[in-house]
């Protein structure tokens, strides 16, 4: 912010200052973490480095690579089939394919642990069919199992970005390949797929961020990763410095991945002239191929949604009476309340930042305003650690000051309170609201806002009467996506949840940790059913 910025008459200072304040506030956790890189780790670091670090590194990288490969297979193939061919139930399948998004990956992991358990549905079926001489026991509880199971719930990220690219892909390129003698299959792998690469890599990046940020699944499957190590240093070794140091390393690694992805995208930017962009013409394959396609598409749906859902419903039927109590109602309410507040605040801040950028005449503000969405790329546990440290300092200072000057004794304001938790959620999920709202505003264009401006209407009134009503669908989508993501969130909640507050995700985690895995089903089903609502909106928005 140069002095010319402050003296520039053409800049709206009120909006600019609020934007800068938001950016600073959202930057605190990330900066806290990154600065810790320089101040060094705690005492146990030496031990971790010698005996454990290699394990963390290997496991995290393995999961990253394996999940990328699995989600690529599970996501891209169905995306191509539903975009390029016409067959019965195509539209229904297209939407069923995104349903696994309703499952947080730790719930899918619990469900699979149960499915393949010695007393699980799979073993029972095998016993019924083959009797005592069981064919084989499938052990999912390991790193390979974990990679597969996480991929079942994460492939929709790849599927969605690939499908969105394929449906908007120009038929012209495909026609050009065809007249040059390429079969439809050849055109797929030589033209469509390479062109889709930047979009698919964008989806993969989301997968990788989820994998690296996961705590619930890895902990239950007994796989030590960077994120489990952060928890371990914090809780078992009681060494926050080391937790922060590990967080900083993880954070750097993810930022590095983002930079690479951006670079790849910049290099390979395939933009089609809208006039020539006609969606792909859908071929109708022969009847037997149609059946094969439907079967191929059913595989990820079955693995990612139907099987885990069956397991959860089965468990819920067994444990419902035990789990259902007044305290569960309170838990449901806390989860709803937290998600609602986070979603409202995130939607509001996103809207503010987007219009502050649009209305600002300063390039500095335009650039700054999109910085807060970086929080989405930082794992929940890392954000939690990054918020805990500065808020503790702030709260202690505040308690001190009020004690000394006013002789009041107050409680902590942010650290370990609902305010702190909601702030952390907002830092983490702002981007989830920001993107659909921005897309909607981009689509509607700025002309209605300008028309209102020319009629002498001030900013807030324009926002309420023109911009909010016109971008309703985008705002609702953004709101719901944050709502569900907050509901599903586990590692951040575990670290920052105020004493005495329980959420559905933490409840499920606690049951699983107590080896009462069947009991996870009731809170899990609440999360999953809530998660289905925004998927419907998301689907509508993509199809528009």
């Amino acid at each position: 912010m140069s002095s010319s910025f402050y003296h520039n008459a053409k800049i709206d200072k009120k909006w600019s200052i609020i934007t800068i304040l938001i950016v600073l506030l959202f930057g605190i956790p990330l900066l806290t973490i990154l600065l810790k890189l320089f101040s060094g780790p705690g005492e146990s670091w030496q031990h971790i480095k010698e005996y454990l670090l290699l394990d963390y590194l290997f496991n995290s990288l393995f999961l990253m690579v394996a999940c990328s490969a699995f989600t690529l297979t599970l996501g891209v193939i169905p995306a191509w089939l539903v975009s390029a061919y016409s067959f019965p139930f195509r539209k229904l399948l297209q939407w069923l394919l995104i349903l696994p998004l309703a499952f947080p990956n730790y719930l899918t992991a619990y469900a699979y642990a149960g499915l393949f358990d010695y007393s699980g549905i799979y073993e029972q079926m095998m016993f019924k069919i083959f009797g005592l001489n069981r064919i084989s026991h499938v052990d999912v509880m390991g790193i390979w199992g974990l990679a597969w199971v996480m991929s079942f719930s994460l492939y929709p990220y790849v599927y969605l970005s690939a499908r969105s690219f394929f449906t908007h892909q120009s038929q012209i390129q495909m026609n050009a390949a065809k007249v040059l003698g390429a079969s439809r299959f050849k055109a797929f792998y030589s033209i469509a797929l390479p062109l889709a690469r930047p979009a698919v890599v964008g989806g993969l990046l989301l997968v990788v961020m989820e994998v690296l940020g996961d705590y619930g699944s890895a902990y239950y499957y007994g796989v030590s990763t960077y994120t489990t190590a952060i928890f371990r240093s914090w809780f078992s070794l009681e060494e926050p410095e080391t937790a922060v140091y590990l967080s900083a390393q993880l954070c750097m690694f993810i930022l590095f991945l983002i930079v690479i992805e951006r670079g790849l995208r910049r290099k390979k930017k395939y933009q089609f002239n809208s006039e020539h962009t006609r969606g792909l013409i859908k071929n109708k394959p022969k009847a037997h191929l149609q059946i094969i396609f439907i079967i191929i598409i059913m595989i990820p749906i079955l693995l990612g949604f139907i099987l885990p859902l069956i397991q959860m419903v089965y468990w819920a039927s067994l444990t419902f009476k035990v789990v259902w109590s007044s305290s569960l109602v309170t838990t449901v309410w806390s989860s709803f309340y937290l998600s609602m507040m986070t979603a409202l605040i995130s939607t509001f801040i996103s809207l503010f930042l987007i219009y502050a950028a649009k209305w600002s005449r300063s390039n500095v503000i335009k650039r700054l305003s999109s910085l807060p969405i970086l929080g989405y790329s930082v794992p929940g546990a890392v954000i939690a650690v990054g918020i805990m440290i500065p808020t503790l300092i702030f709260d202690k200072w505040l308690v001190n000051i009020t004690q000394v000057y006013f002789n009041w004794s107050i409680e902590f304001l942010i650290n370990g309170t609902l305010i702190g938790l909601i702030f952390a959620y907002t830092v983490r999920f702002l981007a989830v609201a920001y993107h659909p709202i921005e897309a909607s505003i981009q689509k509607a264009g700025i002309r209605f806002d300008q028309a209102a401006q020319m009629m002498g209407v001030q900013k807030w009134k324009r926002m309420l009467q023109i911009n909010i009503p016109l971008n309703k669908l985008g705002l609702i989508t953004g709101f719901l996506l944050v709502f569900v993501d907050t509901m599903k969130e586990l590692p951040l909640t575990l670290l920052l949840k105020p004493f005495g507050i329980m959420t559905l995700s933490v409840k499920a985690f606690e049951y699983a940790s107590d080896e009462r895995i069947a009991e996870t089903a009731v809170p899990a089903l609440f999360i999953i059913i809530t998660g289905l609502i925004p998927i419907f909106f998301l689907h509508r928005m993509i199809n528009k």
Partner: protein
Amino acid sequence: MTVLNIKGVTKSYKLDQKHVLSNFNFTLEKGEICAIIGESGAGKSTLLKLIAGLETSDSGTIVIDGKTVESASKFIAAENRGIGFVFQDFALFPHMSIKKNIGYGLSQFPDKTARVSEVLRMVGLESHGDRYPDELSGGEQQRIALARALAPHPKLLLLDEPFSNLDSELKSQIRNELFEIIKGTGVSCIFVTHDANDAISLANKIAVLDQGKVIQMGTSKELFDQPLTPAIARFFGGINIFSHEDFQRFKIELEKADFYGIRPEQIEYSLKPEKKSYSAIIIRETFHGLWRKYKVKLSNQIEVDMVVDAQVPIQGKEVFITLPPEHLLIFHKNERQGKV
């Protein structure tokens, strides 16, 4: 009285650093209707946005109705400038009824409902107040967009390519209706157009923009009779342009210039040789309804276009043409002119 005074305004976009407008000067008097013409990329729409306050200039001053709205130390936002703007695609709010659309800018008005009815009556759509924009035809939407812009009694009305979204049959009818309304209100008005008919028939002043500068400004008659460049001449209709060397072959005594021109309608012809006429062979004939256009090759090897009444086509292959010196246009190369 001067309604708009633009002094030394420069504007460039970050991307290419090229000046869209450079050291731009312009004034508009009260009640004047000015058309801004020029090729695409000449800076026409940017000019309107700068006046409106939807964009900011890099330097220069804009004064509206005696009040500085933009200078190095001052910027009045678009919403506080009191300017009416009709957007190219109308930008009617799709979620509001016509009445609400028009009343939207009238929150300061004591009797909002009466003013809405008044402007609706003015554009002849009293019965459409409760409808929504998507229920109206293109022409009706256009009229509502104008009504909405005029409702708050703006000091200045800006229209960005107001007729480009209408089909040509509708266009001439609506064009005249709209400008009758605008003239009736007495508001000063600037409109951007790429259609010569719009400019000639509606504006009492035309400004030609080229590469961010006004290269000629005047009444439509002045611009038609004395265009400064061949490009301006071409904007108002077909023209034959001759280079200095080619023109020498006509052996007409005229002021020395870089280019000469004559409109096809102003070339005279006869079937027999006359004094100072040139024999010519018809090489192509095209029919245009009310008139016919001929391309002829003169004995001095120069090809020209000429136009005759469609009812009296030229019989035979040979004609004799004369170029009346009073209709000949002369053009000088000038630094101020970008393209010739």
